[in-house]
């Protein structure tokens, strides 16, 4: 009997020790929840490379973008909080603002003053409030990539780094004429990001806005142009999700996509490809910057640790490491080292040229639509499908789709975002 008691006692003691140890290790590690860098390879790079030199242990956890507000809401309603830092795109952090889930980071923003984060990026992190709600983390954009074999067909006098949409059209049709193949490609597949091309590139370039001039005459002319351009586009485009694959296989010579979705092509064959800014239209060179930010959740168990982690991730060395290992570019002033991979450098240069172009016209991701961003994207993709793929007249399609857009904007009460002009109340189609 005594033996049994002794055994029980020692077991309980060991169990107690283990529990305490587990508690201690849990308390030691910070939880970093991110909607970015989700693919296993990128997540491992985050854990093993980027976070390696941070003095504390960090649990890097990923989450699908639509689940982020759901999870944060659940934590708010629950008793225990686990998440310290949230990393997500600007538009994904936005739904957390009405939930009142983010800690103001004004002090931290002040400390990071010397890092050289551009003012316009910092301002985005305020979401129009008086407080800094996230700190810019890393950025990317959409660019164009072309096979070098396509370069001889460039229209005379065209500068590839300052291309116009008309020149893109004559370039693609020259290639079609000479080779008999349609070698311009867009990511219009089911998982592709084609809608961003309309929202952030074509519409701003042709109409100077997105929502307000949705059914304007300029928009009508723009769709007519795009339907014409589509005659030189590879018909497999409606199946392309990532442009790097058709670029690498040679099915496409000129492609537009998010840089992360073309990086494999640039990395594998940096000598065969060139990267360049998106074209410009009558109203400028519309482009969509992609900005990811870092925020701290209210009730975070480790407020100080969270601040230290953000500070660490925004150090120039960490930012360069991030560019090297996952292909997102610095938001702080950081000189890319001369030994940077050639493929990455191609991409970085294209983004740099696009941002610093004289006619650059940045267009933000939709703001204030919350869960209904997908419906907004559908308006543009439906218009594309009807006008370009089914050959309907732009006027009638635009008028009909404008009704859907109007209802969406009224119901979400979303204000206009750049480059649409500021406006009181819900942004409306004119």
């Amino acid at each position: 009997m005594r033996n049994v008691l002794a055994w029980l006692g020692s077991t309980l003691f060991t169990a107690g020790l283990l529990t305490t140890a587990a508690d201690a290790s849990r308390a030691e590690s910070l939880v970093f929840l991110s909607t970015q860098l989700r693919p296993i390879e990128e997540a491992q790079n985050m854990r093993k490379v980027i976070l390696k030199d941070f003095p504390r242990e960090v649990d890097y956890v990923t989450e699908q973008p639509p689940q982020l507000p759901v999870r944060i809401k659940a934590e708010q309603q629950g008793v225990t909080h686990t998440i310290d830092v949230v990393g997500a795109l600007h538009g994904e952090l936005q739904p957390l603002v009405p939930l009142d889930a983010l800690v103001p980071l004004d002090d931290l923003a002040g400390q990071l003053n010397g890092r050289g984060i551009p003012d316009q990026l910092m301002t985005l992190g305020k979401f129009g409030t008086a407080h800094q709600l996230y700190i810019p983390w890393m950025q990317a954009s959409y660019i164009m990539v072309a096979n070098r074999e396509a370069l001889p067909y460039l229209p005379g006098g065209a500068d590839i780094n300052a291309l116009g949409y008309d020149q893109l059209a004559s370039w693609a049709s020259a290639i079609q004429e000479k080779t008999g193949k349609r070698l311009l490609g867009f990511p219009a597949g089911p998982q592709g990001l084609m809608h961003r091309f309309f929202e952030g590139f074509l519409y701003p370039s042709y109409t100077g806005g997105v929502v307000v001039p949705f059914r304007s005459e300029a928009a009508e002319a723009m769709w007519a142009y795009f339907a014409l351009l589509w005659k030189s586009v590879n018909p497999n485009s409606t199946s392309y999700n990532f442009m790097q694959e058709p670029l690498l296989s040679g099915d496409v010579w000129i492609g537009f996509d998010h840089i992360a979705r073309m990086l494999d092509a640039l990395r594998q064959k940096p000598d065969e490809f060139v990267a360049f800014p998106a074209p410009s239209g009558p109203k400028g060179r519309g482009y969509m910057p992609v900005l990811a930010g870092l925020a701290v959740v209210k009730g975070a168990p480790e407020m100080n640790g969270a601040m230290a982690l953000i500070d660490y991730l925004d150090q120039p060395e960490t930012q360069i490491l991030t560019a090297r290992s996952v292909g997102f570019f610095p938001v702080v002033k950081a000189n890319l080292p001369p030994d940077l991979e050639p493929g990455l450098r191609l991409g970085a240069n294209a983004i740099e040229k696009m941002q610093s172009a004289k006619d650059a016209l940045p267009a933000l991701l939709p703001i204030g639509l919350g869960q209904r961003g997908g419906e907004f994207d559908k308006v543009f993709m439906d218009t594309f499908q009807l006008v370009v793929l089914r050959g309907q007249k732009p006027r009638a399609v635009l008028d009909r789709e404008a009704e859907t857009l109007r209802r969406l904007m009224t119901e979400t009460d979303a204000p206009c975002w750049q480059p649409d002009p500021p406006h009181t109340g819900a942004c409306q189609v004119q």
Partner: protein
Amino acid sequence: MRARYIPYLLIAPSLGFLTMLFFVPLAQTIALAFQADGIWSTENFARMAVDLNFTDAVVNTFEIVIIVVPLQLLLALAMAMMLQHVRAGRDIVLWIWSIPLGISDLAAGLVWLAILTDKGYLNTVLLALGVLSGPQSWLTYETPATLLAAIVVAELWRATAIVLVILVSGVQLIPKEYGEAAEVFGATPWQRFTRVTLPLLRPSIQTALILRTVLAFEMFAIVLSIGGRNFPVLVSEAFNWQYNQQDFGVAAAYAVIVMGVSLAATLVYLRVLRTPAEQR
């Protein structure tokens, strides 16, 4: 007295399981489909019906079902009859024929995609044979006929085996004496097939048709991987509304439509292929 309750006790867990994980979500889906902003309405169905892909999705889904299911039945019947006459290696033949059953829809779709893309195996072979002079696209919005044909072939390849397995087990249940008796009276092989085998096989055919038709209305992964945006079907549209547009109401409306169509098809089969009581 107690023995009376034992059967109910024993089936209670499975009943509870089904109720929890099938009937409750089913009721919730129906409720979701008929509600907009918390009010009972048919708005979700109205939005579904005016969407540009709705008509295409309905037409495409029915097109596939109407083409694929009868073809599969014919093929499986032929295969089952042939199998009857195979003596040695019968199990191996059956095993090879049912390989596609063990492959997931998505994997099957990707296999066919690899065959049929511009630089896929089919074009490579055709190019080598000199039939083509350059890559030919089969799966784009510009080639709807070959796209449909590709999906039909892939579906045939993937799902004929399930019909076959049901029919083979049905054929094995038919006593040999009937066939032999018919032969004695001078029936030709064709007469024996149409007058003896087919009628006795009716319950199996009914089961196979119900299962296959319901599954064909729900087909998704194979169509998505081969057709993508170019070939919308009911379930892929439900998926789009649920995940891309995040409009759960319209997605639920599609789910209700798929369920309604499947139920109707099942009822039709049960009625048309009814086995008279005296034959059971």
